[in-house]
């Protein structure tokens, strides 16, 4: 492989290298990028290593900040991120989890990217280093527009959810771990028994992780009883654009989505 491997002194220096060369990429875990190189993606000629740039830290408080080079294994090991452990542990096997990073997951396409699904439900923001300095984007905007030219993700940041308000479900054909038939993450904080500030996100129901806005609207301000859950399940597939792949057909994904959404909302998720 005629690859050039570069080490940067700082994230901004790395951003400069990326901005100056379309074929330069920023390498964290390598589960996507090295695979792309190995399978012949000629558009990748230079890899700037994320090593030693301080992107592997987690800061905990009311606001949670997870560095882009933090691995799934590190998230799963952090006791104060216990609500995210089921998400991190649903990705790959142990070896993949030791390599795959939070930052890399933001760039995953269907059927991957389950961690990003969770971050969408948590209302995360993406902190990037760009040629113009630090930039903070809502994750949904980041997923739609992509990173700025030369931009490098430093971290993701979100408000820690109230206890018990976050839930997650992933459906796979291979057990216990595999690529998603679909995944669902939901943030359902409750005020006087009513769900307020509802956020629901899907994985593998579109080319990139997406928010389920119709479901959110159906649940907002409601007590999560059978009527509310039925109303949400009815609009579950609204706005989705799943793909056919070896895990499932688009038709199958759309057909089973309401079943799994119903399970998640009624606390029956396996």
């Amino acid at each position: 492989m005629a690859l050039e491997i570069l080490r940067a002194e700082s994230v901004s220096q790395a951003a400069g290298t990326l901005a100056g060369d379309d074929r330069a990429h920023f390498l964290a875990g390598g589960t996507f990028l090295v695979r792309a190189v190995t399978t012949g993606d000629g558009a990748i000629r230079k890899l700037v290593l994320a090593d030693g740039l301080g992107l592997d830290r987690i800061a905990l408080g009311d606001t949670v900040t997870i560095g882009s080079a933090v691995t799934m294994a590190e998230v799963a090991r952090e006791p104060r991120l216990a609500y995210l452990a089921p998400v991190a542990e649903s990705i790959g096997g142990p070896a993949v989890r030791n390599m795959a990073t939070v930052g890399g997951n933001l760039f995953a396409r269907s059927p991957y990217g389950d961690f990003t699904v969770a971050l969408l439900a948590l209302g995360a923001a993406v902190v990037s280093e760009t040629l113009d300095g630090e930039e903070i984007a809502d994750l949904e905007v980041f997923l739609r527009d992509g990173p700025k030219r030369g931009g490098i993700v430093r971290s993701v940041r979100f408000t820690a959810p109230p206890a018990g308000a976050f839930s997650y479900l992933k459906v796979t054909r291979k057990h216990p771990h595999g690529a998603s038939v679909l995944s669902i993450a939901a943030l359902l904080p409750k005020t006087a028994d009513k769900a307020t500030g509802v956020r629901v996100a899907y994985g593998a129901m579109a080319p990139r992780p997406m928010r389920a806005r119709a479901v959110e609207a159906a649940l907002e301000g409601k007590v999560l009883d059978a009527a509310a859950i039925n109303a949400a399940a009815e609009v579950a597939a609204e706005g989705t654009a799943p793909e056919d792949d070896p895990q499932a057909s688009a038709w199958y994904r759309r057909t089973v989505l309401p079943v799994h959404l119903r399970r998640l909302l009624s606390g029956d998720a396996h």
Partner: protein
Amino acid sequence: MAKLPLVFTVNGVEQAELVEPGSLLVDVIRDKLGLTGTRVGCGQGTCGACTVLINGEPTLSCLTLAVRTNEQEVTTIEGIATNGALHPLQRAFAERFATQCGFCTAGMIIAAKALLDRNANPGRDDVIDAISGNICRCTGYEPIVNAILAAASDMRAAKSA
């Protein structure tokens, strides 16, 4: 581009090599060091056959750039026997029919070793999770899971003896 120096420890022995910048760890292990126990299955991080330990953590050597293991400690299947005696996991795999064609075996044993190094008394689900990134197309997994549980039990018995 010029080759890069790589100095790392493999199975307890320091190694120094000049490698292409884009060389994969698995290719250096197999082709430069001649340690061919580690297999390349899919080459895409899906099958787990290339699993090695880097600083004790299971890692896919087919997706790891060799230069990133500079000054790190790598353990392959060749490095887990002690003084010529097979590791209890190797023994259990051989005795309990946990290996058929053998292609996944090195990766399975390394993945299992990472588990047993951390958890001496794993349950069946722990074992299934530990090898969940390793594909076996022969055994149906049951003999592998049983062999890992048996090795764990052998190791506990040897420790308390």
